[in-house]
């Protein structure tokens, strides 16, 4: 079970399947904007988590708000780390094949 956003996963698979034709160009333009919005999403989640943690100390907000925000921030951060790892893998594959 893999919960990386379907669009991203499709792009990564495209690159892996046919690395010779996976040049920088239209495909990767879409991919980089997908990646950018994913990163923005992670940043929003992290900021939301900061806010929730502050709220918890001040005394506004409910206990589940804090925990859900923190956990979602953690998970989306983990996810983007995995995406980065896969990108690195894909890059190395491509580099190996160009010998």
């Amino acid at each position: 079970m893999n919960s990386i956003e379907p669009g991203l996963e499709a792009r990564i698979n495209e690159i892996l399947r046919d690395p010779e034709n996976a040049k920088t160009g239209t495909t990767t333009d879409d991919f980089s904007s997908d990646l950018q919005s994913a990163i923005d999403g992670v940043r929003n989640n992290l900021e939301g988590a900061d806010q929730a943690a502050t709220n918890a100390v001040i005394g506004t907000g409910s206990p589940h708000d804090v925990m859900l925000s923190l956990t979602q921030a953690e998970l989306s951060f983990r996810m983007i780390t995995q995406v980065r790892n896969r990108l690195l893998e894909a890059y190395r594959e491509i580099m190996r094949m160009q010998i």
Partner: protein
Amino acid sequence: MTGILGDPLLPWLQSALDLSYKRQGLLNTNLANADTPGYVPRDLEFNDYLTQMLQSQSEGMPSGPEPTVEDRPGPETGFDGNRVNLDDEMMKMAANKLLYELVSQVSHRKMALIRYAIDEGGR
């Protein structure tokens, strides 16, 4: 708030927790005012809203109007206008607390599962 996680259940869990938490506040206030003259107990009904939210999500439609706080007077005791029935309020409170704890547990499992998928699914 889900963004990259993209799981449709998470907003629903958030709503369920928000609503039952709000309701618990109302029920606790009712109990605190069990003897206040003129006090009328209040409540928040959200079962239909949550059910409909699940259906709307699968059909891609927006969910209905949000639940509102309403008065729920118990029987008149004839003394000072207080309308709180202690037993009713306590039962409602116990049931609602259980709901919150249950949804919390579900949220926990969901998060743990996603975490596992992210960590292990990368292989």
